[in-house]
């Protein structure tokens, strides 16, 4: 027994000592991993299509990305992801070589070099209050050193030199009640007009000298009534405003500084008028107004007279106007008709002159057109050609030119909000999807090439051939399940409410579907659950996922459930559930006869609703009615409440799938000293292989493995802010482990002089969390392991033999747990965005922590580094067990970055999922970029690696067979000669 144990330990040592880090050879990049780069939903686009040089478009997005895209292929030349609080307000090109971005509510101005994206200068602008932020770069095509960039933001107007970012002058507009609406600078004029409203009822125009910033003139005029905030600048001396009743358009003209108003009733323009809305496109001498779900175009005459010239259906997106040849100005509009979109480019002055009319077939799952940006070019026959960059409702970005989609980018994937996994269909007998591409000779050739590669005898051409072969090999992008479970689908829900299925093999989009709802046009997706995963029964049914969404952004708005078939991507059904969604709880282990999983959805009224709404599900639920508990965290109030089921809420409504709950316990944190900043539970589907942990001295520790543990971290309210804002004495971090059935606090650990943010991961019986230590001014990582004391007596073999053990005693949350914890802390030299842990099919393989750093890389750290049993001088036995000597900080081994030399820009989350092969786990990281890889935390001990050299094996066998024959022949000869002797 002891011998076997020692052998087992030796084996562990052998296995574990071999793997210190995840490591990758450079030529293995792309074999198991893929990386996709995105930018997000485009807000602004500026074309740069001069005759010389590459044609590009500069975009800024809702993910705070500024990027330069190749206009021919849509590839990214360069991009920068700004900080999360650094939202981009405007982007433009200055001097023909700098990209200017205005961000942080108009207080940060940066210039980037157009060809390579290097930041050239950065200027911080003074800001005193929240206000509109406006960026105005004069469109002066001549290179003129005198002109300056005008920026309005934070109540100040700034003039900044485009060459070095030097602040030339600034003007204070922070007067009480004054709101700047527009900053206009007529071409070739040294006067800047600043138009603003005082208390929404008085228009003031300042004329400012653009060289010195002096106010030349100031005119104001009171308006009888109030303005609404909506404004459209139609020319250099006229703007059109809506009044607060939204039924009158007011033209404000300020020729030579004299302000005059001219009111026009909307009802005089269109017959059936209602509330109007000014649309954003900037058209010269014209504006677009949305009235009664129609878009009308209103021309502004010289005297400020308004007349309606055209009207379009509601589903029309328009671009800003664009100067084309001969002082003409054109604009584009896009509208839908069935599965086609129609792009029309017209002259602003003459709407009957259509410069371009194109119809393009468009995928239904992209939704409607959201934004249009146009650019013109001169064709070979000297006529104008147009290209249009369109942003669709699902955030995708497409370039249309000559009636076709030149390129498209699935930018929806830059805002993934939730991810789940799904299996691929089983390969049907008879229908072989695999192509029989290999003859024996080809196969052997390939392996000989590989052998050459592994012996480093390959020439550069061979290396290329090997790489190509590996990339295409082994049908890794097939759409069927494989034996090892390496091929899977990752289902990603995006902020736009679109569902994508990504193949783990090559990262391609297998299907995508935009969610619909009968209740509202576009529900916003909240979360994603596995709904039906047939593996024992109902095998002929396709698996499906449940998407929970809601109509509207408020948490009390009605929820929407949508069921999507995983194999086809078709929406099976979609229902408006008529109550709000606060919390969705998949009930573990409860499935009905068609393997649909039971879910409980809590609403704002304190009721819970059972899904699926079938009598069978109700029956299953009622059997376990007394054993269902749930909890909710009220973070703002510092309260955690536990609930149990009470009764059917039949008394109030006729809905028999609705239940009332009763409050069982509450944990209230004192609001003056503790504020909840993080809560976490174990993943419900995690598999724990063994409860016992055998140490070197043949002692057994029993892990306290409970599904009902909640990890809570609180900090002092002062320490809830950023790092520089608090002193060590003022802040303390306290972590709790709470049983969510009884509300019992099982463990409490306090860290004085520490603060958040806390990033934690909870697996099996341990929690690892990352926080900031203010005293040492370093980040720290602490591990807490929980062990069950009540089972510690079961070590004696005789007790086991005689049945005097309590291993079969039922585990109940109500029995008082006797548990003890071990913990240890280490320094960690980086900020962290998220932490995850690897998960394998049976939980046998050792675990690795996956730490997403603020540098957008993912570090794989072996769990052995965060083991409370680490000591400064481990004994020989402990070393054999794999205990690493204690160090004060955790090591960062560059080879253990699973993202190797890539970055997952804007990293937000890491998802792991087990493969069928025990040693292997899938890792999917999402942010602005997507990254996938397959990890084997203890190396692939249960299968041969891709690198395995079959050729070497074959050669060895052949050599051995040859040797046998030779020696046989030799011995025959020897025998014969001996007989002759």
């Amino acid at each position, binding site marked *: 027994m002891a011998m076997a144990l020692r052998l087992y330990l030796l084996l562990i040592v052998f296995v574990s000592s071999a793997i210190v880090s995840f490591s990758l050879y*450079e030529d293995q990049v792309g074999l198991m991993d893929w990386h996709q780069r995105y930018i997000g939903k485009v807000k602004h686009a500026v074309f740069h299509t001069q005759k010389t040089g590459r044609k590009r478009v500069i975009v800024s997005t809702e993910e705070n990305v500024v990027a330069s895209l190749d206009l021919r292929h849509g590839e990214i030349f360069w991009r920068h992801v700004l*900080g999360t609080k650094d939202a981009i307000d405007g982007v433009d090109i200055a001097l023909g070589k700098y990209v200017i971005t205005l961000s942080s509510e108009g207080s940060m101005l940066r210039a980037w070099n157009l060809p390579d994206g290097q930041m050239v200068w950065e200027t911080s602008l003074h800001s005193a209050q929240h206000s509109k932020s406006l960026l105005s770069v004069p469109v002066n095509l001549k290179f003129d050193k005198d002109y300056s960039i005008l920026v309005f933001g934070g109540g100040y107007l700034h003039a900044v030199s485009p060459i070095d970012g030097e602040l030339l002058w600034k003007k204070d507009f922070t007067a009480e009640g004054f709101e700047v609406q527009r900053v206009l600078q007529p071409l070739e004029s040294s006067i800047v007009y600043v138009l603003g409203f005082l208390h929404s009822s008085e228009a003031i125009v300042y004329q400012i000298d653009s060289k010195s910033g002096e106010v030349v003139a100031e005119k104001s005029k009171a308006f009888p009534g109030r303005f609404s905030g909506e404004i459209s600048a139609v020319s250099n001396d006229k703007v059109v405003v809506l009044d607060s009743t939204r039924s009158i358009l007011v033209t404000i003209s300020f020729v030579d500084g004299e302000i005059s108003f001219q009111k026009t009733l909307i009802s005089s323009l269109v017959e059936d008028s209602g509330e109007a809305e000014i649309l954003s496109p900037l058209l010269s001498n014209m504006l677009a107004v949305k009235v009664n779900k129609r878009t009308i175009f209103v021309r502004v005459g010289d005297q400020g007279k308004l007349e309606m010239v055209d009207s379009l259906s509601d589903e029309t997106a328009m671009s800003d106007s664009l100067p084309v040849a001969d002082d003409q100005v054109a604009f584009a509009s896009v509208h839908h008709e069935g599965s086609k979109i129609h792009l029309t480019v017209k002259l602003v002055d003459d709407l009957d002159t259509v410069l371009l009319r194109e119809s393009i077939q468009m995928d239904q799952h992209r939704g409607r057109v959201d934004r249009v940006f146009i650019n013109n070019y001169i064709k070979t026959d000297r006529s104008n050609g147009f290209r249009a960059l369109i942003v669709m409702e699902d955030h995708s970005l497409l370039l249309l030119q000559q009636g076709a989609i030149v390129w498209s980018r699935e930018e929806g994937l830059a805002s993934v909000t939730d991810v789940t996994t799904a299996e691929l269909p089983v390969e049907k007998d008879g229908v072989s999807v695999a192509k029989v591409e290999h003859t024996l000779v080809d196969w052997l050739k390939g392996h000989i090439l590989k052998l050459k590669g592994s012996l*480093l005898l390959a020439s550069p051409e061979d290396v290329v051939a090997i790489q190509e072969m590996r990339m295409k090999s082994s049908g890794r992008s097939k759409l069927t399940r494989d034996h090892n479970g390496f091929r899977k689908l990752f289902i990603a829900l995006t902020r736009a409410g679109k569902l994508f299925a990504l193949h783990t093999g090559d990262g391609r989009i297998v299907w995508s579907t935009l969610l619909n709802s009968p209740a509202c046009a576009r529900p916003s997706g909240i979360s994603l659950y596995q709904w039906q995963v047939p593996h024992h029964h109902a095998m002929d049914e396709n698996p499906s996922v449940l998407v929970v969404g809601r109509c509207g952004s408020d948490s009390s708005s009605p929820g929407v459930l949508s069921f999507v078939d995983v194999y086809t991507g078709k929406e099976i059904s979609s229902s408006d559930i008529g109550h709000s969604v606060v919390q969705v709880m998949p009930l573990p282990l409860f499935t009905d006869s068609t393997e649909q999983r039971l879910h409980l959805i809590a609403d704002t009224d304190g009721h819970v609703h059972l899904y699926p709404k079938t009598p069978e599900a109700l029956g299953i639920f009622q059997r376990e009615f007394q054993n269902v508990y749930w909890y909710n965290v009220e973070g703002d109030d510092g309260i955690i409440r536990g609930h149990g089921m009470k009764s059917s809420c039949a008394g109030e409504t006729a809905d028999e799938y609705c239940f009332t709950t009763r409050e069982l316990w509450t944990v209230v944190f004192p609001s003056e000293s503790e504020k909840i900043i993080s809560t976490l539970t174990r993943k419900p589907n995690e598999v724990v292989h063994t409860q016992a942990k055998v140490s070197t001295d043949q002692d057994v520790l029993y892990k306290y493995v409970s599904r009902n543990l909640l990890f809570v971290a609180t900090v002092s309210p002062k320490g809830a802010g950023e*790092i520089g804002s608090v002193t060590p004495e003022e802040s303390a971090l306290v972590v709790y482990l709470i049983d969510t059935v009884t509300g019992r606090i099982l463990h409490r650990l306090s860290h004085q002089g520490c603060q958040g943010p806390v990033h934690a991961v909870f697996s099996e019986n341990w929690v690892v969390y990352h926080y900031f230590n203010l005293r040492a001014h370093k980040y720290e990582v602490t591990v807490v392991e929980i062990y069950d004391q009540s089972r510690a007596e079961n070590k004696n073999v005789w007790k086991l033999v005689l049945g005097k053990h309590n291993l079969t005693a039922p585990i109940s949350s109500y029995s008082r747990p006797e548990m003890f914890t071990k913990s240890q802390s280490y320094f960690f*030299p980086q*900020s962290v965005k998220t932490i995850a842990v690897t998960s394998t099919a049976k939980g046998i393989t050792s675990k690795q922590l996956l730490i997403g750093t*603020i*540098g957008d890389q993912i570090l794989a750290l072996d769990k052995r580094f965060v083991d409370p049993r680490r000591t400064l001088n481990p004994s020989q036995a402990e070393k054999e067990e794999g205990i690493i000597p204690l160090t004060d900080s955790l090591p960062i081994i560059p080879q253990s970055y699973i993202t190797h*030399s890539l970055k997952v820009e804007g990293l937000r989350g890491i998802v792991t999922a087990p493969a069928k092969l025990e040693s292997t786990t899938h890792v999917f990281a999402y942010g602005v970029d997507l990254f996938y890889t397959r990890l084997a935390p203890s190396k692939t001990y249960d299968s041969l690696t891709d690198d395995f050299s079959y050729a070497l094996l074959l050669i*060895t066998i052949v050599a051995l067979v040859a040797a046998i024959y030779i020696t046989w022949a030799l011995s025959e000869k020897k025998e014969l000669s001996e007989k002759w002797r």
Partner: protein
Amino acid sequence: MAPILRSTSLVALLVFQISLFLFTSTLPISSGSEDSYTITGRVRIPASTAIGHAAKFSNIKVVLNGGQNITFLRPDGYFTFHKVTAGTHLIEVYALGFFFSPVRVDVSARHHGKVQATLTETRRSLTELVLEPLRADQYYELREPFNVMAILKSPMGLMVGFMVVVVFLMPKLMENIDPEEMKRTQEELRNQGVPSLSSLLPASR
């Protein structure tokens, strides 16, 4: 490895001191109004460590307080954080291929935003805010060059080696044993009744 590192840092220190004479104006003195200051610093990647990596300034990010502010480098390597409150802050530099120590930065309100900087990893205080990588990171394992020992050490190599030993050395060993003696030992073993391998092999007779 460690002595090499130390020597490079010594060189870097020398460079510091020289640059101290040259750019006294680049001392990390921040400016600003009552409660908000500016931190200006510089990232420098010594040419010796940059070998093998494209040390592009355009892809380097400088992070204040774990993501509160993110800024980028100008072509000359300088970076600036604006509107920083007085207090103790943390600056981190992220550049692919390099590891930078986080820097503890104390902005003093009393001394009008005077900046004191300390590397938190090595606890070395900086006279000016010039940040250099502690080490260059190599993300890939290097392929070992072709090696006979490596082949022999592989499972297949061990298999072949064992076969060779059995085929060529075992008969030699058997030859050396006197046949008489061997028979005697076998007899003894049989008498003791201990099952032995040789007794199971009929060919040994």
